[in-house]
């Protein structure tokens, strides 16, 4: 099976099928509503892009949320100034985040290791702090940049007068809310998966892995590593900008806290949780975190009592009391415990668990050692 997945058309087909049927197979988990599905797709893109930098070059950026924010702001401004069509918004989002990534990357990549991380963190925090306060005319600060009835929307106005209410984002008429919004994001995610897969399996990707493994050697091997890391940084920043603009596409609001260090930290956690350097691990990590954030926080005493109503009363009370610690306002606790359990028992994240599962199912056959080493050499899918 793993062999088959190595082939590009099959990998793409399987991936697309899994993504597009999410509304069906996520139903038993209670996660099949449009907003969460959109978030799954969007944060999947964000994490996948982050992984191109962190997973391939080993440079740990702690300021990637800045690009997410820039992408969102650019997209919302495109909605405000030009048109509610999402294509220009996405184009602007990717373009501006690319420019930001180029500039921040150009400066930050002069240093490596922790010094690089802190430089990116500093830039992102400056973006956040300024966006929250001084740059309010551009970002609308705390409230977040929103559409208003007074927006010019030049291009839309050329075709039709303004309606009474706020217009919705659309892709040539298809509204970008609800399921159509999810399918749009899903298609973008599939494209991103394709791009990311190609990069992973190209000489360029191999070069980046070389930089991660031994940057010193790369120099004596004739590589000018800066343009490589710079390119990876920009690509990864553009993925983040794309994710940011998709956030605005599905919900036209851009808030400053999207750029805060906690948001940057979140994508780092998603990537590590899923499996650094694996193709789809980061996306799985993103799903897991978003799932906990949206579903576990929604449980309250009433729902718990319902869940445990089949138990005899004293038992049900105890069950509600104990599980109540981990859901609702305690959802952070569950997340924290999960982080620790995964990193302790599955070093290498969810994908490591997957690999172990595959190996376990495959039984201790002759091919065991071989697939193992292949998995290390070529990040598994």
């Amino acid at each position, binding site marked *: 099976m793993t062999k088959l997945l190595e082939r590009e058309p099959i990998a793409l087909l399987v991936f697309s099928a899994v993504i597009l049927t999410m509304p069906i197979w996520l139903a038993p988990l209670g996660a099949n509503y449009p907003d969460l599905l959109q978030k799954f797709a969007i944060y999947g893109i964000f994490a996948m892009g982050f992984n191109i930098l*962190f997973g391939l070059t*080993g440079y*740990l950026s702690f300021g990637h949320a800045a690009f997410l924010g820039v992408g969102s702001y650019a997209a919302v401004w495109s909605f405000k100034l030009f048109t509610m069509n999402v294509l220009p918004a996405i184009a602007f989002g990717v373009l501006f985040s690319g420019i930001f990534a180029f500039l921040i990357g150009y*400066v930050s990549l*002069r*240093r*490596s*290791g*922790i*010094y690089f*991380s*802190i*430089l990116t*963190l*500093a*830039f992102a*925090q*400056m973006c956040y*702090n*300024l966006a929250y*306060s*001084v740059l309010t005319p551009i970002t609308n600060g705390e409230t977040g940049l929103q559409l208003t009835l007074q927006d010019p929307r030049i291009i839309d106005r050329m075709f039709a007068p303004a309606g009474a209410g706020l217009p919705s984002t659309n892709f040539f008429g298809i509204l970008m809310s609800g399921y159509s919004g999810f399918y749009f994001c899903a298609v973008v995610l599939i494209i991103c998966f394709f791009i990311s897969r190609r990069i992973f399996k190209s000489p360029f990707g191999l070069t980046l892995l070389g930089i991660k493994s031994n*940057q010193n050697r790369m120099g004596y091997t004739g590589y000018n590593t800066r343009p490589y890391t710079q390119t990876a940084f920009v690509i990864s920043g553009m993925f983040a900008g794309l994710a940011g603009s998709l956030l605005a596409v599905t919900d036209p609001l851009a808030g400053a806290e999207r750029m805060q*260090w*906690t948001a940057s*930290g979140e994508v*780092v*956690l998603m*990537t*590590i*949780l899923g499996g*650094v350097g694996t193709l789809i691990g980061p996306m799985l990590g993103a799903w897991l975190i978003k799932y906990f954030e949206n579903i576990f926080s929604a449980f309250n005493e009433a729902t718990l009592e319902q869940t445990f109503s089949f138990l005899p009363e004293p038992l049900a009370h105890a069950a509600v009391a104990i599980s109540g*610690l981990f859901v609702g306002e*305690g959802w*952070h*606790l569950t*997340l*924290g*415990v*999960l*982080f*620790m359990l*995964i*990193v*302790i028992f599955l*070093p290498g994240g969810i994908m490591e668990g997957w690999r172990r599962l595959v190996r376990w199912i495959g039984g201790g056959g002759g091919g065991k050692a071989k697939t193992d080493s292949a998995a290390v050499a070529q990040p598994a899918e």
Partner: protein
Amino acid sequence: MDALLLQFLNGLDKGGAYALIALGLTLVFGTLGVVNFAHGALFMLGAFCAVTFNKLLTLEQVVLDPEQKTAWGTPLEIRTPYVEAWLGDFGVFLVNYSVPVSIIIAIPVMLLIGVVMERGLIKYFYKRPHADQILVTFGLAIVIQEIIKHYFGANPIPQSAPEIVAGSANIGAWLGLEGNIVYPWWRLVYFGFSVVVIGAVFAFLQFTTYGMVVRAGMRDSETVGLLGINIQKRFTVVFGIAAVVAGLAGVMYTPILPPDYHMGMDFLVLSFVVVVVGGMGSLPGAVLAGFLLGILQSFASMNEVKNIFPGIDQIIIYLVAVIILLTMPRGLMGREGVMEE
């Protein structure tokens, strides 16, 4: 002039706090090489040592008075703190001095927490990639926070400084200057305290044989290990010291900043910035960077400066960090090869 003097004092005070928090972090992060995202949580735990001690001291005997009713109709509770009831004046004294006195409790408690953390968890992560360290310590930080939140709530819990140092000192009068140059006593105490703790940590590492072995081990643990010295045990001690330093910083900060469960996270990023600006693996660097950033932040917040550069006080720390890291490749006093990959 007095404005500058006061801002300089603010800078020293802030710097003391930053240096103290960063010092503990640089011990584990800069020297043991563990990216410890739970360091903020240690700071917070220290603060809650003070809170817990105060709560214990003010535990109240509750007597229900059926004669009187509350606004919602239940019997009125009459509360008397046990300590005051049993110990009289000494009890009152204890409550008054609960913050400084809780240092005595915080040291063993934080040492224990640090050692347990290192032996139970961090020990297994020395050789693991930094990514794994980030995930596990972040998870730990969240768990600690949530436990504290469960027991103490999310609202800040005020702690007061002892009455004798509750007010402010008239520094202007000491220096013979005109105007209202006053500064809170407690902040002066905090500054002095941070200097003492920093000095103690340096003295321990510099002048005791134990400290010397630890310092050698930080530079080259393999060689020291070959010499037949149990470097693992020393690392545990270093971690314990880091936890104590962070905890003490937290204890003494409570009168300035009423502690809540999230205060650790608020300081986490800042402490990483301070450590890295100081240079990885350098204790003096972390202290220097703490004071530098504290002082610059104070001056950047002056109206005169803000009028020229709006919003400069919001970003000054990060701006300085960027400038320093770009002009000095390894921060102020960093050692070559520490976490540069």
